[in-house]
């Protein structure tokens, strides 16, 4: 009885050892070097031939991505809407945390890496971070205390720093909606600052609190012909500075609402995304959508145009409300503002984008993060738009879904809405030097108690690779995987057989496993 028990124990031990070795073997075959997130990808739909997996989760409002020359990832945790502290994580290409940079003012909305320095766009500032971690402010005093902040940044082929800058208000009028965005409680003297002086129509907007005009603080009225002084830096613009001599600010584009993403194609031509009007505030303008523009140094029309069309058109009128009127008496320039190259659905809250490299496929097409509508902020309705990464082909001006959540519980939208694990609010898309796509996913953001609030630790960093998905990992050729799996299973059986048949006192030596392992 005793002997039998001993034998049984040896057998059990051998079997357990086999399981352990086999598990190690198979895990090594598939596993990345970083800790695998528990976030499931089952409910995510990725374009055919590509796969997605989470790299890091439990992040606090990720907003921007950049890569250094070695392929290390810089990921900004924005700190927006109480998402947590504003910081930049440095992560190795294998997904291991290297360092954390702090000392920024929330929100961090943009990152760029150039010649050994990381550039960080955070509230009101762009700062450079040297390799030793020293932070130096390149520019301060950007007008970012309103609805929107300074957003993404770019070092162009001219080695100049391009800064996207949002507006203070949704449509030029400070109103009760700015209590939701938060800043009006703290700064009632704030108003939009144009890049050039403007003449006003004298159109004011009343509520039960007060009457307020355009480009003036809450409760201030305007007159026909009243001048608003322009200055630099200014709201709703793309500004350019020389990072080595940042004293002079050039305005490259203005009359924008909320330019967010900025990037170049393979020839160095600059493009940017712009979030269109929200349906909120005293001056209600039905949005025609979010926009993708080429940067060509013009006045883009805000707050009297939407995507190059005057808001005096009846299409911008919401039933039962006033037809929107111009607030400006003279529109800059001699032509109409430019039209976008492409438009995304209204309230998609378009964000970062990147041109695809050849390695990834869809060369020179654009992958765009649509962070998604916010009920109670963008249009006040339950209708969801955005919450996806789309592919934009400029040749046919066609937009196709690239990453979305599958419909679940008869609902579509962000993971938090459909009640399943998945993507929430993609805020940035960038390609690593080796051609893999990374997507920053902000996480959950809602209006609660009339205040915009982010859910801490709900953000995810996703990686999208070329190839089909198997167990959440990218495989270039599914047939190879099937063959590979067959080999693994067969190998496992052989190993088990060897274990079972090996002399009792001479178990297999580990070097055989390592041999298998490394081959």
């Amino acid at each position, binding site marked *: 009885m005793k002997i039998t028990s001993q034998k049984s124990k040896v057998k059990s031990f051998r079997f357990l050892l086999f399981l352990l070795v086999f598990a190690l073997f198979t895990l090594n075959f598939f596993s990345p070097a970083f800790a695998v997130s528990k976030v499931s990808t089952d409910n995510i739909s990725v374009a055919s031939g590509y796969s997605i997996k989470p790299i890091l989760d439990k992040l606090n409002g990720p907003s921007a991505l950049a890569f250094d020359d070695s392929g290390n990832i810089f990921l900004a945790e924005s700190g927006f809407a109480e998402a947590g502290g504003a910081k930049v994580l440095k992560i190795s290409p294998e997904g291991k945390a290297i360092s954390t940079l702090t000392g920024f003012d929330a929100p961090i909305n943009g990152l760029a890496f150039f010649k050994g320095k990381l550039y960080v766009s955070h509230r009101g500032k762009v700062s450079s971070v040297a390799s030793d971690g020293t932070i130096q402010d390149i520019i301060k005093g950007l007008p970012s205390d309103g609805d929107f902040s300074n957003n993404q940044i770019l070092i162009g082929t001219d080695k100049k720093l391009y800064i996207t800058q949002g507006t203070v208000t949704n449509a030029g009028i400070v109103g009760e909606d700015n209590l939701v965005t938060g800043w009006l409680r703290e700064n009632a003297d704030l108003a939009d600052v144009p890049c050039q002086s403007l003449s006003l129509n004298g159109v004011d907007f009343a509520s039960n609190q007060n009457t307020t005009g355009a480009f003036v603080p809450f409760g201030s009225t305007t007159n026909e012909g009243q001048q608003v002084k322009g200055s630099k830096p200014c709201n709703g613009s793309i500004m350019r500075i020389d990072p080595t001599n940042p004293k002079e600010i050039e305005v490259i584009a203005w009359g924008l609402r909320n330019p967010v993403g900025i990037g170049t194609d393979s020839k160095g031509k600059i493009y940017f995304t712009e979030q269109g009007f929200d349906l909120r505030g005293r001056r209600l303008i039905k949005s025609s959508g979010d926009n993708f523009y080429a940067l060509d140094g013009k006045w883009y029309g805000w707050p009297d145009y939407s995507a190059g069309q005057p808001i*005096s058109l*009846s299409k911008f009128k919401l039933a*039962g409300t006033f037809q929107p009127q111009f607030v400006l*008496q003279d*529109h800059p320039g001699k032509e109409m503002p430019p039209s976008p190259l492409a438009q995304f659905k209204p309230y998609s809250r378009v964000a970062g984008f990147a041109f695809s490299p050849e390695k990834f496929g869809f060369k020179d097409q654009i992958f765009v993060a649509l962070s998604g509508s916010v009920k109670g902020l963008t249009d006040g309705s339950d209708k969801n738009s955005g919450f996806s990464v789309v592919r934009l082909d400029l040749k046919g001006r066609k937009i196709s879904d690239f990453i979305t959540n599958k419909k679940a519980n008869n609902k579509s939208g962000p993971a938090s809405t459909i009640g399943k694990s998945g993507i929430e609010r993609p805020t940035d898309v960038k390609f690593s030097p080796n051609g893999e796509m990374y997507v920053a996913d902000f996480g959950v953001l809602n209006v609660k108690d009339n205040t915009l609030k982010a859910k801490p630790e709900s953000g995810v960093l996703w990686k999208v690779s070329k190839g089909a998905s198997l167990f959440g990992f990218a495989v270039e050729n599914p047939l190879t995987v099937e063959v590979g799996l067959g080999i693994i299973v067969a190998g496992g059986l052989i190993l088990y057989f060897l274990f079972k048949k090996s002399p009792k006192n001479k178990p297999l030596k580990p070097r055989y496993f390592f041999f298998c392992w490394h081959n």
Partner: protein
Amino acid sequence: MRAVKGIIMLARVFKILILKTLFFTLIFLPVNDLFAAGSLNSQPSFGKVNSKVNISGNGFKGGENVDVFFDQKKIKSAKSEGNGDLKETSFEVPCSTPNQRHSISAIGSSSKTKAEKSFFVQPIPVSITVKASDPKPGKDIEISGRGFLSEEKVKIVFDKEASSSGVPAGSIKTDKKGSLNSQKLPIPPDVKGEKVSRITAIGDCSQSSANSSIYLQGFYPNASPSNYAPKVGTKITFSGNGFIPGEKIGVFLGDPNNSKSVANLKADKNGTFKNLGEFKIPKDTITGMKSSFTLIGEKSKKPVTISLTFQDFNVSITLSSYFGLPGNTILRFSGNGFVPKERVDVYFGGGGQGKGKLVNVFMTDDQGDFKNKGEFTLPFGIRAGENVFNFVGRESNKPQQAVFNVGAFTANIVPSNFAPLPGNSIAFSGSGFPPNEPIQIYFNNQLVGSAFSDSKGSFKNSAKIQVPYGLGGQAQIKAVGSLSGTSAIQNLELQALRPSVTPSTFFGAPESVVTIKGNSFAPNEHIIVKFDEVNVSEAQTDGKGNFDNVTFSVPSGLKGGEHTVNVSGDKSKATGTFPFSIGEGG
């Protein structure tokens, strides 16, 4: 002595002769004559360039290399035979050899033995004829000819004189027979027209030349503008012909001697151009008078002057409607006379110092016209009556006005009942409001409901309310458009409830029980029965405001005689009264 002197003299003369002979021999002896002499035969001795010449010779060192020269140029090398003979060989007379005597020589490379012969290049008789359909500089000329060498390049030169190298026109090539067959070449633009021009064809190899003459016409360039009455601020272009093909042409406004060109263009290969030399006419240009543009070709140098009259803008505007009500009236604009593809800003309500509010922006078409452009919704709150639109082209900058009459809404509200009783349900209908507008209904200045106007600005039986109890006399209802502020007021004559109470008896003793019934009170209201001022009973009306079988006891201790019983509704405040008599004996 004489003989000696004679001998000496003879010796001197002889000496001088010998010295002189030696001197002249040394001075005039050709260098070549220093070489050892050989002999050379050449056949033929006369020939054209490219013709074959056979040579042979002897007197060279056996087996040495013998170089053959044509004039000073080495053209061949051969080896002498063992006996020093040069075996027959041949060469071709080189191209471009002039028609004159030339030397053929053979020199042994080691012995320096030299042999020489003369060769005469003969001229080749060539001829050409020329013709041209449009014999002008820059146009093509057709050249035919014969007698040249096979596939020879022939240079064509205009007006070649002894004192002038002429104007080269280019080269053409003969066929295998040495002929030119109507080959085309453009006449150089530099050749002067309006005269007979001599054309010389020179064979590049044969050096033979032939001449022909042709009368070249002069230039008669012509040009026209895209518009003979252009508006200031607009762009004008030019078309023309008769210029030298490919020449640059300057466009001058006014006197070309005193101004710089305002535009430049280039004629095509036919000397023509179409809609080139775009020039935007300055806004400060004088209008209504003859002005001129002059076009001068850089090579032809013949000025072409165009007269035209600049026009001021004569814009006209048409509105899709000249009368409308604020709100949903959408105006569109048509017009013409603006600068093509200019932005037109539309201002509304200007007057006095102000230019009004910017209300619309659109672009004109290629002709400076626009049709049904813009989309202007008359805003609420604008002044009724005449209002002015100002159309300002961003390029033309000549404001043009159009007058528009803004109407006023005359709204009214009608209740379903002008004299309702308290508790009655009434609804409201209205008309004359802006279409599709939310309307708020007030009853005695209290918001009581809302309506929504239809596409005609009307609403019907909306905002049902119950007339409050406790009111009487006049009440006011008001409907106010929430966007337009348009309001309508109506007065109601509220009727009072007139309840009646009927007792089982009008007479009784104290503490006797009386049964009462009543009607026309408020439905389901609490009623109080007072005998004089004393509460004697309470009850509830039914859903119709009636009550029945309500009893009370006649209070004791009251004097006999007439008393009053009041029955009053708690909600309606309505009162029904009847007299009740208590006997004197009480």
